[in-house]
C-alpha cells in the first residue's frame, strides 16, 4: 500500500466552515467541542480504508453538508408535529424534537409521570448541570468520527432520569420539518437508577425529497437490576443520510433490550456500543432493516462483556430489495475476567432481487477460556421450497413472498415487550411490503 495523503473533500471543508460558524452559538463548554472537532478533523470523514467504515464510506457518501438547523418557531414546531406520527397507537409521554431542537412547550413539566425527570440539554449545557458529568464517552465510541461530530455540533437534546418502575413509555420523537434540507445533531442522556424500569420509544421522521442529515446520539446508563426496553424506528425521508449511535453502560442483574428498525433514509448507519459492567445481566440487541431502491444501511455493533455470567443475544435481520446494500458489523469482546459469558450473535440477510448486496462481518474477540460465544451469518434468497409450499396453497407469488419476509423480520421484532409498539413495528413492515407489491 502506498502512503496516500487524502485531500480534503468539499464536505470536509464545509464541516470545518460550519463548525467555525456555529461554535460561538452552540451552548456549553466550547473547549470540549473544539477538542472533539479537532479529533474528527485530524482524520476527516472515515472512508473504506478505515476498518470500521469499510462498507460505509462516508467520504464518498456524504458529498454535501446541509446547513445546520436553527431553532424552529412555535408555529413551525406545531406544524411539524401535527403530521403523521410514528407509534401513534402507543399511549406514551411525548418528548418531541423539531429540527433537532427540543420542543419545550409540548411537555407538561408539572405533570410528568412519577419517577421521570427531564432536563432540556440546551439549558443544562448553558448552566453546567451536574448530570453533564455522566455524559462521558463510552469505550469504543470516543474514537468514533460520527460520535465526535455529534459532540462537536450537538445543539439540543434532553437528559432523562428514571427512578422506580415507570409504566408509561417515554417517546422521544424526532421530526424534521418538510422543506429545505438541514443537518441536526442531538444528544440524549438517559440515566436509569438502580431497580428502575422504563420503556423508551425513539422515532425519527422526515419528509421525502430533502437531504436531511441527522446525527443522533443516545447515551444510556442503566443501573443494577434495571429493566430497559428501547425501541428505535428510522422512518426518515428517502433522501436522508442518518447517522445514529446508542451507547449503553449496563449494571448487574439488569435486563436491557434494544431494537432498531430501519424503514427509511437513503443512507443510514446505526452504531451500538454496549458494555456490560455487572454480573448476570441479559442484553439483547436486535435489528430489522428493510431496504429497497439504492438504499444503504449499516448496523454496527460492539458488545463488551466486562463481568461474569452475562448473556447477550444479537439478532439482525436485513431484507434487501432492488439494488440496495446492507451492512452488518458486529463484535463481541470478552476480556480475561468475563468468564461464563454466553454470547450469541446472528445476522441474516434476504436478497429479494438480483442487484442487491449484503456485507456481513460478525467478529469475536475472546480472551476468557470458559465462555460460550457463537456467531453466525447467512445470506441468500427466499427458500424456494417455502415459496412453493405457500403458492401450492393458492397464494400469489408476491403475497407468499410478503408472508415469508414478514416472518423473517418478525423473528427480530417479536422481542419487543410493549405490545402496542410491537404492533406499530409490524404495521411498518406491512406498509413496506405493501409499497413493494
Amino acid at each position, binding site marked *: *500500500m*502506498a*502512503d496516500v495523503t487524502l485531500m480534503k473533500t468539499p464536505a470536509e471543508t464545509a464541516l470545518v466552515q460550519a463548525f467555525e460558524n456555529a461554535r460561538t452559538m452552540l451552548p456549553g463548554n466550547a473547549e470540549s467541542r473544539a477538542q472533539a472537532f479537532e479529533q474528527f478533523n485530524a482524520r476527516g470523514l472515515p472512508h473504506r480504508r478505515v*476498518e470500521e467504515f469499510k462498507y460505509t464510506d462516508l467520504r464518498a457518501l456524504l458529498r454535501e453538508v446541509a446547513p445546520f438547523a436553527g431553532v424552529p418557531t412555535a408555529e413551525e414546531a406545531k406544524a411539524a408535529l401535527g403530521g403523521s406520527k410514528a407509534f401513534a397507537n402507543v399511549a406514551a409521554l411525548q418528548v418531541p424534537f423539531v429540527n433537532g431542537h427540543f420542543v419545550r412547550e409540548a411537555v407538561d413539566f408539572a405533570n410528568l409521570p412519577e419517577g421521570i425527570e427531564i432536563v432540556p440539554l440546551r439549558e443544562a449545557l448553558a448552566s453546567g448541570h451536574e448530570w453533564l458529568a455522566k455524559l462521558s464517552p463510552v469505550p469504543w465510541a470516543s474514537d468514533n468520527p460520527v460520535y465526535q461530530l455529534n459532540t462537536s455540533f450537538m445543539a439540543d437534546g434532553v437528559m432523562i432520569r428514571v427512578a422506580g418502575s415507570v409504566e408509561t413509555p417515554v417517546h422521544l420523537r424526532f421530526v424534521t420539518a418538510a422543506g429545505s434540507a438541514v443537518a441536526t445533531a442531538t444528544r440524549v442522556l438517559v440515566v436509569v437508577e438502580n431497580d428502575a424500569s422504563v420503556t423508551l420509544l425513539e422515532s425519527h421522521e422526515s419528509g421525502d425529497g430533502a437531504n436531511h442529515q441527522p446525527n443522533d446520539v443516545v447515551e444510556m446508563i442503566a443501573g443494577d437490576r434495571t429493566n430497559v426496553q428501547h425501541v428505535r424506528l428510522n422512518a426518515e425521508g428517502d433522501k436522508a443520510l442518518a447517522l445514529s449511535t446508542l451507547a449503553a453502560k449496563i449494571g448487574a442483574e439488569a435486563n436491557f433490550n434494544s431494537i432498531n428498525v430501519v424503514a427509511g433514509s437513503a443512507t443510514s448507519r446505526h452504531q451500538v456500543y454496549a458494555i456490560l459492567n455487572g454480573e448476570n445481566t441479559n442484553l439483547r440487541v436486535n435489528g430489522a432493516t428493510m431496504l429497497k431502491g439504492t438504499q444503504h444501511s449499516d448496523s454496527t455493533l460492539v458488545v463488551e462483556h466486562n463481568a461474569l455470567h452475562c448473556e447477550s443475544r444479537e439478532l439482525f435481520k436485513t431484507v434487501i430489495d432492488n439494488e440496495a446494500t446492507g451492512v452488518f458489523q458486529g463484535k463481541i469482546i470478552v476480556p*480475561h475476567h468475563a*468468564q461464563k459469558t454466553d454470547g*450469541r450473535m446472528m445476522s441474516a*440477510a434476504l*436478497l*429479494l*432481487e*438480483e*442487484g*442487491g*448486496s*449484503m*456485507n*456481513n*462481518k*460478525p*467478529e*469475536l*474477540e*475472546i*480472551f*476468557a*477460556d*470458559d*465462555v*460460550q*460465544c*457463537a*456467531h*453466525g*451469518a*447467512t*445470506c*441468500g*434468497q427466499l427458500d424456494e421450497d417455502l415459496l412453493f409450499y405457500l403458492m401450492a396453497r393458492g397464494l400469489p407469488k408476491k403475497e407468499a413472498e410478503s408472508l415469508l419476509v414478514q416472518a423473517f423480520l418478525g423473528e427480530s421484532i417479536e422481542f419487543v415487550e410493549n405490545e402496542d409498539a410491537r404492533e406499530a413495528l409490524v404495521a411498518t413492515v406491512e406498509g413496506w411490503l405493501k409499497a413493494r407489491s
Partner: protein
Amino acid sequence: MPAVQETIDQVRSIDVDQYKYGFETEVEMEKSPKGLSEDVIRFISAKKGEPEWMLQWRLDAYKRWLTMKEPNWARVSYDKIDYNDIYYYAAPKMNPAPKSLDEVDPEILKTYEKLGIPLREQEILAGVEPQNRVAVDAVFDSVSVATTFKEELKKAGVIFMPISEAIREYPDLVKQYLGSVVPVTDNFFATLNSAVFTDGSFVYIPPGVRCPMELSTYFRINEKNTGQFERTLIIADKGSYVSYLEGCTAPKRDENQLHAAVVELIALDDAEIKYSTVQNWYPGDAEGRGGIYNFVTKRGDCRGKNSVITWTQVETGSAITWKYPSCILRGDNSRGEFYSIAVSNGMQQVDSGTKMIHLGKNTTSRIISKGIAAGKSENTYRGLVSAHRKATGARNFTNCDSLLIGNQCGAHTVPYIESKNATAVFEHEATTSKISEDQMFYCQQRGLSEEEATALIVNGFVKDVLQQLPMEFAVEAQKLISISLEGSVG
C-alpha cells in the same frame, strides 16, 4: 466450558519448548552481501543464471516495493523488521553444482535424515509400498539441494523441479503463469518476494494426467540472519490431478528470521490441486525470543470449469503467522476448499484464514477452520467469502471454531461475508450444532451424543484430507486431528 484434559495434554505435547527440529547444521555457506539493493537482486539473479526478463521482473518488483508500506491490519505485533539486516541469499557451497545425491554435502543429507525426509529413491522404494511414494524437493535456505523421482515423473509428462531450473528450462511456461495469480504488486511481502525469491518448486501437470505420486517440498532454514523467500508455482492443465505437500522447520535461535513466500496455483478445466502444508517453523521460546516470522501469500486460481483447489494446513510453528491461502473461483462450477488447524502455544501469534472469491456460476466453497490457543498466544481467524454480481448460484459453508486453553491467550474471529448476488447462499457458523440437522440426526439416531456426532462430522471433513499426508510429514497432524474441540467457543 473449559477445554477437556486430553486436549490440554495434546496441545502441551507440542508446546514451544518441545520443539524437536531446532538443531543446526554446520556447512560452509555462500551468501549475498547483507541487505537489499539492486546489486543484491542482480547477484541473486546471476547466481541462478536467469535470463534478462527475469532480472527485469525482479527489479521492477523491487522498485515497486520501495514505495510500499508494511501492512499493519493483522492482529499481530512485532518489532520493526530491518530489511537491510538480512542476507537474502544463502546457499551451501557446492561448486560445481552436484549432479547426483552422492555429491551433496553429507551434512545436509544428514539433516534431512534427522528430519525424517527421504531423499534417496532406492531407500524409499525398498521400504514403502509403491503407492505411498513421495517425490521430494528439498530446499535448504536459498537453494534446492535435491529433487527426487524427477526422471520417473518426467515419463508421465510431469515437470517437477526447482523454480530456478524451470526459469531456465521452461521459460515460456513460467513467463505465462508466474505472477498471474499473485501479481507482483499484490502486497508488501509478495512484492518483496517477487524481487528476491531464491527457490521453490515448479510443477506442471499436462492435460489428463493424474500425477503418479505425491509431490512435496521440504523447506529448511538453517543459516543465521537469513530470510527464506521461496516461490512455488503449480499448474494443473486440463483434467489433471496433483497432490502437493509442503513441510518446513528451522533451528532454534534467539533472533527472528523472516520467511516470506508466495505460492501460486492454477487449475484449468476439470483439474484438481490439493495443497497441504505442515508448517512447523521454530516458534520461539516460552518468553517469545526468536522464532520465524511467517508472512506468506498463497493463492489458487480455479481458472477453468469444474476445477477444484483444496488447501489443507496444519499450523503449529512460527512466532508470527500471517497467511491466508485463498481461492479465486473463476471457472463455472469450480470448487474451493480450506481446511485448517492452527495451534498456538507460548507467545505465538497467528493471524490466518482464507479468502473464497466467487466469480463464476455455481461455484462452491467450504471452509473448516479450527484454532486452538494456549499459553500466552493469540490466534485469529480472518476470512473473506465474497460473491460477485455474476456468481449465480454460488454456495459457501464456513465453520470456524476456536478453543482457548488457559486465560492468558486470545482467540478471535474476523469473518467478512460479502454477497452481491441474490442467488448466492452463504452460511457462516460457529455453532456446531447447526452443521447439518440431517447428518446430526442420523448420527444421534445411532446412539452418538451430540458432541460425538459433531466431532465426527466436523472431523470427517478434515480427516479426509489430513489422513493422506505421509507419516514422515505429519505425526503431529495425525495427533491433532483427534483433538477434541469440546468446550470450543465459536
